[in-house]
């Protein structure tokens, strides 16, 4: 039996069945998230700290300050550098960290909000998933009792997850990076909460992502591939937790796959000639930069042909799904306001851009 991904066959001692376990450099599946956090804090002491007594609440050393709206992001682990990699000056002030692919509970979210609130209010931003919505809403309800004003903007950039007329039900995927970036810049520029919320919603409305998966990932606790896919297959529109997408197709060359992703995005985003965009070509985990740049090459050719102007591009691992193979393409439609915010400098543990002013 052959299986996609990094995997080895084994015979189950209890049942005698042949199964597949993936290979990972971990010590203990149940401790993976906390050991990762220890490593992140060891690597980025100038950028991040964990709140005393709340180790899953990661806060920016520089960023939170008097009069500034606090931006709290968060979600499950396994998407690194999302979400905590985008904590830093000019972007998010704190991230609440969940178990692998699971929303954080309310407590670490509440601790993050308290740590970054300076009286100007707090904005929660996270991908639109039922679990995240319930936990962040419970946190917001409890913070309201402490007189901390919280607003929430969920990201809904995944074109594949719902039709355009029900955009608000779409899930949030790699386009998060641009949406968080715009909102974080608005916070850094000391805009009030109403204004930050407006900008965050607008940034989300302008952002469109479509992805494709080639092979599964496995959770540290199970070491089993989380879905089955044939050697010659790809899944278009698959979610970043391995949720099935819109179509199972035969794997094709990069240009053809990129065209399929872009066609879906362009049809949805209705971009006219002359539109400026920010581009993100994101790896779902194990797809290497070589393949991402081959995709980027095609994106550039297609956008040139459509007279759409690339203002800035990101290529790399921004929102991953453990070791899943595959990629996503995101376009954010820019106007002057969003372009200024996307260009605004930020300095995070795993992401920085622009000139740094401190």
């Amino acid at each position, binding site marked *: 039996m052959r299986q996609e991904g990094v995997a080895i066959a084994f015979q189950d001692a209890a049942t005698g069945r042949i199964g597949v376990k993936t290979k990972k450099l971990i010590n203990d599946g149940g401790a993976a998230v906390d050991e990762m956090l220890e490593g992140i804090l060891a690597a980025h002491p100038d950028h991040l700290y964990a709140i005393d007594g709340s180790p899953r609440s990661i806060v920016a050393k520089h960023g939170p300050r008097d009069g500034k709206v606090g931006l709290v992001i968060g979600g*499950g682990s396994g998407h690194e550098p999302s979400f905590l990699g985008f904590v830093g000056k000019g972007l998010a002030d704190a991230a609440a960290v*969940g*178990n*692998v*692919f*699971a*929303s*954080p*509970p*309310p*407590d670490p979210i509440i601790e993050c909000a308290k740590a970054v609130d300076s009286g100007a209010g707090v904005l929660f931003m996270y991908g639109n*998933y*039922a*679990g995240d919505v*319930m*936990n962040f809403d*419970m946190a917001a309800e409890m913070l309201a009792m402490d007189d901390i004003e919280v607003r929430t903007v969920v990201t809904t950039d995944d074109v594949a*997850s*719902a039709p355009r007329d029900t955009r608000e*039900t779409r*899930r949030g995927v790699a386009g998060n990076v641009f949406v968080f970036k715009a909102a974080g810049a608005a916070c850094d520029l000391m805009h009030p909460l109403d204004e930050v919320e407006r900008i965050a919603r607008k940034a989300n409305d302008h952002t469109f992502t479509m992805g494709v998966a080639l092979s599964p990932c496995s*959770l540290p*606790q*199970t070491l*089993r591939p*989380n*879905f089955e896919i044939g050697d010659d297959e790809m899944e278009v529109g698959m*979610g970043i*937790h*391995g*949720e*099935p997408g819109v179509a199972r197709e035969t794997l094709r060359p990069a240009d053809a796959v990129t065209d399929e992703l872009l066609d879906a995005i362009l049809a949805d985003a209705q971009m006219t000639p002359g539109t400026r965009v920010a581009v993100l070509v994101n790896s779902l985990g194990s797809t290497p930069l070589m393949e991402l740049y081959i995709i980027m090459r095609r994106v550039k050719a297609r956008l040139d042909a459509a007279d759409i102007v690339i203002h800035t591009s990101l290529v790399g691992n921004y929102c991953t799904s453990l070791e899943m193979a595959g990629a996503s393409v995101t376009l954010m439609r820019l106007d002057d306001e969003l372009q200024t915010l996307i260009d605004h400098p930020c300095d995070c543990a795993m992401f920085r851009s622009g000139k740094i002013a401190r």
Partner: protein
Amino acid sequence: MSWIAVEDLQRLFQDIAAVMTSERDNLCQLDGVIGDADHGIAMELGFTAAAKAVGGLDPTAADPTAVFNTAAKAFLNAVGASSGPLYATAFMRAGAAVKGKASLSESDMLDAFSALAKGIQDRGKAEVGEKTMVDAWAPAAAACEHARAQGGTLHECLLEALKAAETGRDATRNMVASKGRSARLGERSLGHVDPGAASAVLIIESIRGSFP
């Protein structure tokens, strides 16, 4: 049957935790077909944490409400995800339903069971037919109420609840998901049992087994 004491509830949570540990991989596999393959992990984590926290309570000092509230907090903080808020709400509602009682009569336990099922439905805002754990919990609560109205004992009521939950779970096989992550699947969720409904049956089975 006699009164249900704090120790009985402590044992109940330990039983559920043991079942979730042994069924973890099966639940993950169900979830892998239509979701992200972590449901078994969440349920094992949550109930193990709940059983441990509840086990730490002094049965001479704690009341049943404290058991349910302690379970709720431990489950929520261990899990997050969607099952965290759902089961935390369920246990808090069960605790509220029996507030002020030192031990529970059969009738109190049935109140707690109904409140628990209602809590899940309220927090998740799901209806029957949407391919979620509510497809097991709602019919279980209804069957339990019905048996109770007919004068059934706790054991009889829970037996009816379990049967209805199993039927509800099996019915999710023919449903298209419209809530939770698998909602994005549409027609492709057809033919697969909902993992949340499957774990709900395991919980109800444990509750029934605890009060023979």
